[in-house]
């Protein structure tokens, strides 16, 4: 055994992130199928009335726990692992990282209390002037600031490594993780300003009103890069781990992978107006500019598709795959971690196509806030990201706990069940959206639903039911693994795919931070600056709060 040894304390610390993440997924995913069942006409919310007052309260629980808590905790845990393992050194200041982690935990609890008390039924976008209890905003703030603090701990660890390794290339898994964290630190300034300057003082009664348009602009400053914060950790695994797992493959292009991450950093923030194409208070010219940049950020995803598939092909051919497609069957589909991530990648292809439609300035007019949107993001965050994280957990949890993965066959089937359930669910949601069905509506009860939607609404429920089965299987596998008496014989080998070309030969500018950071900030100033200045200069804090749920 000659892989770098992560200390037991650090494994426990990383594992704590994964534990909170999976607990959040467990509760949050219970509510997912309830929305889907409602659409099909099976309303379970009637029976939940003593605890959960409405469809919308359930939807808030689902969105906050799955989209915000499951993702953020899993990501911070996984990235912390990548930085430690990639740089082969312990955290510089473990206490700082622990402080960050506990801030996040306290934040989740602080937000959970008002959500469960039906005092924060504002969905995960919390658009004002819907006004939640102040504890909800405090909780969100703590989660974000806690993740910053953890990020600083990782940057400090990197800075020490850099001092001792002046001419080395940053190992890829650490590099990708640090770029992701940097992106997160920059983009979350939007919600931080939204909450601290408007929502929190307003919920505490210190100011009378808020400016809903400006709040949306702040929110979407964070809201779209958030997508890349979710996605990039999955990309790290697809680029640098999956090819190894799938058949001892190598990463096809190390330098282009790095370039793709830099482009994500530069482009993922200054395009938030593509969520606000139909907002009344944003000039069309800026919306159009953001739409072009949104197309631009599709480019590194196309690069990723090429490199990942080429790396997988390399793995498949190494296993004896022949012909154009023969290598696909030779990939190690018997490994649940591989199966999950391959299936995640396949559905992401369709998620990407739908995303291009959303990004298309005026095509969006027929899609905005329709069921197409949740249909889309259940392919991206709920499959490309979530199913990949599930796949990562199938090796990471045994690695961290030293316990064998319980019933790998179950784990493998779980991934297939998710894949099938999501195809049914997501396809019907996309079609419903094109027919004009709005999102965030209990369509089982809505008075304007025409009969032609019914078969699709049934499919939404069916897909939800299948996904529910898959979710239960995942939780069972995780629970039985965490309590498994059977231990792994020796430490699980962390799958790291070497690059085909020696990274040391990649251009130095791909390992320089300053120019990319300046470029990112400059582009934000150019593309967001004028509108931010104008909207802030014309701020009208005229909207009092409402609790109408």
């Amino acid at each position, binding site marked *: 055994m000659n892989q770098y040894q992560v200390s037991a304390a650090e494994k426990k610390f990383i594992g704590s992130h994964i534990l909170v993440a999976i607990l959040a997924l467990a509760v949050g995913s219970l509510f997912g199928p309830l929305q889907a069942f409602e659409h099909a006409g099976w309303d379970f919310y009637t029976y939940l009335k003593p605890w959960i007052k409405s*469809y*919308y309260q359930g939807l808030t629980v689902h969105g906050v726990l799955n989209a915000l808590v499951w993702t953020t905790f899993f990501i911070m845990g996984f990235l912390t692992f990548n930085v430690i393992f990639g740089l082969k050194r312990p955290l510089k200041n473990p206490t700082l990282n622990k402080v960050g982690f506990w801030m996040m935990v306290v934040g989740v609890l602080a937000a959970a209390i008002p959500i469960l008390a039906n005092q924060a039924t504002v*969905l995960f976008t919390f*658009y004002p*002037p*819907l006004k939640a209890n102040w504890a909800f905003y405090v909780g969100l703030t703590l989660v974000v600031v806690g993740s910053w603090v953890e990020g600083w701990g990782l940057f400090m660890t990197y800075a020490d490594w850099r001092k001792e390794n002046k001419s080395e290339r940053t190992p890829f898994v650490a590099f990708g993780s640090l770029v992701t964290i940097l992106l997160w630190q920059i983009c979350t300034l939007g919600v931080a300003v939204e909450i601290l300057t408007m929502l929190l003082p307003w919920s505490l009664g210190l100011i009378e009103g808020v400016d*809903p*348009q400006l709040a*949306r602009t702040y929110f979407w400053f964070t809201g779209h890069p958030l997508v890349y914060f979710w996605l990039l950790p999955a990309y790290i695994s697809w680029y640098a781990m999956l090819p190894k797992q799938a058949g001892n493959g190598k990463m*096809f*292009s190390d*330098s*282009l992978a790095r370039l793709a991450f830099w482009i994500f950093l530069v482009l993922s923030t200054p395009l938030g107006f593509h969520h*606000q*194409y*139909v*907002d*009344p*208070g944003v*000039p*069309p010219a800026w919306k*159009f500019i953001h739409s072009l940049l949104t*197309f631009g950020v*599709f*480019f590194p995803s*196309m*690069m990723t598709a*090429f*490199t990942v598939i*080429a790396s997988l092909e390399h793995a498949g051919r190494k296993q004896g795959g022949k012909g154009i497609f023969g290598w696909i069957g030779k990939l190690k589909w018997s490994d649940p971690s591989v199966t999950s991530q391959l299936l995640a990648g396949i559905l992401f292809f369709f998620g990407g196509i739908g995303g291009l439609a959303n990004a*298309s*300035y*005026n*095509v*969006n*007019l027929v899609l905005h*806030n329709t069921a197409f949107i949740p249909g889309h993001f259940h392919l991206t965050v709920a499959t490309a990201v979530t199913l990949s994280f599930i796949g990562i957990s199938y090796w990471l949890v045994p690695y961290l706990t030293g316990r064998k993965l319980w019933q790998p066959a179950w784990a493998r089937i779980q991934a297939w069940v998710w894949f099938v359930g999501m195809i049914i669910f997501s396809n019907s949601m996309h079609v419903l959206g094109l027919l*004009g069905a*709005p999102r*965030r*509506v*209990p*369509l089982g*009860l*809505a*008075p*304007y639903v025409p009969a032609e939607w019914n078969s699709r609404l049934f499919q939404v429920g069916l897909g939800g039911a299948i996904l529910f089965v898959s979710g239960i299987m995942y939780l069972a596998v995780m629970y039985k693994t965490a309590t498994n008496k059977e231990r792994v014989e020796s430490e699980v080998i962390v799958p790291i795919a070497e690059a085909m070309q020696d990274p040391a*030969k*990649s*251009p*130095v*500018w*791909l390992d320089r931070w300053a120019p990319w950071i300046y470029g990112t900030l400059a582009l934000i100033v150019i593309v967001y600056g004028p509108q931010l200045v104008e909207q802030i200069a*014309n701020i*009208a804090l*005229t909207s*009092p709060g*409402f609790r*109408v*749920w």
Partner: protein
Amino acid sequence: MSAHKMHVDSYERNWMIFSAVLLVVFATAVSVAAFGMGIQVPAPEQRVDPRTVATDPNSPWSNPGLREIAPGKYDAYILARAVPLWEYLPKELTVPAGSSVTFYVTSPDVQHGFKIQDTNANFMVLPGQVSKLTVKFDKAGTYNFICTEFCGAGHGIMYGAITVTP
């Protein structure tokens, strides 16, 4: 500076060129639709005070409804509200086929949406802002307009209808 040149495989170079061309084609199509065919998105129209917009007698939304400003041309002032009930005021409009209707929609309370089924009209309604869009109704029939943004417990029942008479 860099002592090493970036290695790019020829297949990958071609793929990147293909990707770039594809995106340029998409962006061009969207631009032609926007500037050539006039399929545009809402633009800033007017700021209002949500606390008084529904009650101030000088505000057109204190008396929401349809106004014919020229033959076949209408302005529709619509209030989208969650209090006391989730509804649009007015809930129903009737215009003859061939009419061009300019919608001016605002909210005195929370955020709403306004999507007219089977048309390209779909926009956010924010308190403090006026959303404006013109729609030409050529075909007779009933067009529901529905709320597409979560606005509280009654969000799912919030809708209205435009009847286009032959």
